[in-house]
């Protein structure tokens, strides 16, 4: 059975009614009445305690108090609510019934149980997250350790590979040198006795052995650099003179393809401590590549300049250019760009730029490339003026 509602009112903290929201009968209360005056002295203590409770805790329940109505008293239950930051209270009074207290009690218990359940679930969830995080952390540490282990294995395998290659290159160099020398002797001794075809074959063999020897030298140099066994023989040098001496040779090579080597920004007065023969290798390599990949009749631009503490040498060609991913690998040994073909069938084994990078690094400098597919390439060597 639903208990009968007597009133719902807004009142001040001293229980004076500021507004009436609902009344069972009109004569019961009016605005300005003080609720406290509707209780006997004995009941008043209970009621004011209830008001005080609501003022401090925003909620109060008074299961039973005798409310004076005209000449009689009726037993009512009271519920009070107070909004945060508000002065007034909302008081609800209804006919006292056993069910009111029971219902409230049950609701409170349910609320409490639910709260406990929620708290338990949250704690359990946190515990699970915590376990998971610890497990993830362990996994991360393990992966890190595993990577370090693999890295060490790779370094060992790589060192072994380098050793085999350098031994092989070293052992091949002597017989190849012998073949080349013997061919020279044979060509000289048989001068005039060979048919043009025979002579051409011998010269091709000689060229092939020279190329192979050069390749082996480059390979050996790379591994000498990597193992720190190659010492630079630095000397004070006029860099422009070095470049110009090379240009004379490469201009002849370029002429075959009607390519012009054009000096753009060219500082003739740059003195620097370098290993001349090694830096010559770098410049020669850049010039060879530029000629190799430039189409007939194009221009190759060369620059040599310095700033306060660095020297720059640049070679800009109008060749096919390089993709970004190709540029990243360009300086790795044995990397050849598959998408780019030399314009006159010149060969490449992918050692020149790797060696160039090692030589420049040994001079504490930097070699880089700027390029876009189809727009040529700019190779730049930076060398510190003070090593």
């Amino acid at each position: 059975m639903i208990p009968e509602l007597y009133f719902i009112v807004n009142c001040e903290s001293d229980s004076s009614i500021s507004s009436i929201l609902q009344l069972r009968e009109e004569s019961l209360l009016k605005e300005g009445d003080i609720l406290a005056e509707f209780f006997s002295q004995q009941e008043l203590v209970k009621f004011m305690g209830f008001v005080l409770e609501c003022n401090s805790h925003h909620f109060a329940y008074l299961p039973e108090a005798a409310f004076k109505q005209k000449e009689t008293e009726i037993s009512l239950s009271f519920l009070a609510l107070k909004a945060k930051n508000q002065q007034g209270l909302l008081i609800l009074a209804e006919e006292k019934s056993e069910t009111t207290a029971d219902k409230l009690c049950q609701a409170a218990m349910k609320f409490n149980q639910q709260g406990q359940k929620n708290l338990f679930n949250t704690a359990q969830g946190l515990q699970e997250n915590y376990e998971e995080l610890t497990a993830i952390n362990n996994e991360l540490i393990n992966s890190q350790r595993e990577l370090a282990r693999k890295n060490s294995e790779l370094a060992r395998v790589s060192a072994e590979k380098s050793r085999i290659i350098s031994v092989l290159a070293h052992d091949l160099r002597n017989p190849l040198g012998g073949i080349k020398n013997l061919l020279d002797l044979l060509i000289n001794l048989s001068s005039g006795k060979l048919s043009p075809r025979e002579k051409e074959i011998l010269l091709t063999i000689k060229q092939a052995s020279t190329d192979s020897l050069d390749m082996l030298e480059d390979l050996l140099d790379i591994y000498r650099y990597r193992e720190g066994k190659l010492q630079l023989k630095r000397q004070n040098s006029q860099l422009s003179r070095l470049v110009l001496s090379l240009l004379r040779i490469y201009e002849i090579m370029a002429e075959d393809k009607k390519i012009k080597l054009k000096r753009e920004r060219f500082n003739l007065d740059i003195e620097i401590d370098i290993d001349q023969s090694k830096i010559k290798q770098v410049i020669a390599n850049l010039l060879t590549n530029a000629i190799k990949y430039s189409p007939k009749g194009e221009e190759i631009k060369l620059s040599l300049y310095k700033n306060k503490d660095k020297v720059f040498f640049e070679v800009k060609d109008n060749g096919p250019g390089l993709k970004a991913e190709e540029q990243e690998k360009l300086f790795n040994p044995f990397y050849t760009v598959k998408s780019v073909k030399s314009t006159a069938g010149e060969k490449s084994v992918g050692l020149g730029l790797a060696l160039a990078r090692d030589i420049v690094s040994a001079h504490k400098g930097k070699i880089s490339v700027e390029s876009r597919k189809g727009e040529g390439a700019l190779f730049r060597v930076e060398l510190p003026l003070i090593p």
Partner: protein
Amino acid sequence: MQIFKFQREFIKQLVDKQYELQPEFKKYGPEGYQKSLQDASYNLSFLEEAATLESPQLIIDYCQWTGYLFQKLGLPSTTLVQFWTLTLKLSPQILSEKTFQEIKPYLETAIRSSQTPVKETPSFINKENPQAELLEKYLDLIIRQKRQEASRFIISRVEDGLPLRELYLYVFQPFQYEIGRLWHSNQITVAQEHYATASTQLIMSQLYPYVFTDKGKKYNALCSCIQGELHELGIRMIADFLEVEGWNTLYLGANMPNRDILALMQKNPPDLFAVSCTMTFHLDRLIQLLEEVRNKSKIAHPPLILVGGYPFNIDSGLWKKVYADGSASNFEATLDFLHKRGFT
């Protein structure tokens, strides 16, 4: 034996009684009350482990340690004595006569130890340390929260030839102890302590290229913390150190469930199982695990078991009571232990 575990009502009763006798605690409010409950629970866990393992040393050290902490936190000097006295008085309510008699001597020891004046813990940076200068600089950088600089500093020293063994033994290990001491004496916060530990962990990872070398590996070691244990740095140092010494290590990390450790051990039986337990109240799990490894698991040849962690440093004979073959507090001791058992 499980004496006080899950006795929440009893713990609450103890704390309430202590609040009645020492009303000054009320000034710490509800948060202080919660901490008191937590502390009471810790106190009883340590008492329980000491009694279970028949190790008075564990409770003596705990009382000294906690007494020092309370003193530095400005808590009344009688706090711990009062707590143990109340426990002695109220325990018969919840314990059988037999259990009470078993625990009583440890409670009396706890009362006596808590009455002993606390001693100042000396700094772990001393002049006898051959790397004292390095240690001081590292500590200074970390306290000033210059982690990157500290990392560069340490790595450069290793690059210059400082052996990892010296770095771990004379820098990282005393550094962690010193950080613990500074927290214990209320000179640094928990956040600073965690920052310091995380810095050492980070630098240890950055040193992996020096740890994992292609040196031939003769033996296998499984290194782990016990379930629930979060203090993983010590056992990680041991794992790294073993790796440097030519062992192939599998490092499982913090809070590793017993079942997972056993499963791994059955799959790939190691030559050595190095396990760490820092918090005394995790010792029961360690006993469970090692008993399982020794007697109940399907591991045909149980590995050599080495335990380490704070309780084993306090009670040098404790390892015998947890089914281990020995304990070690640092790498030198680990190496010595392994050599004596033929792992050279």
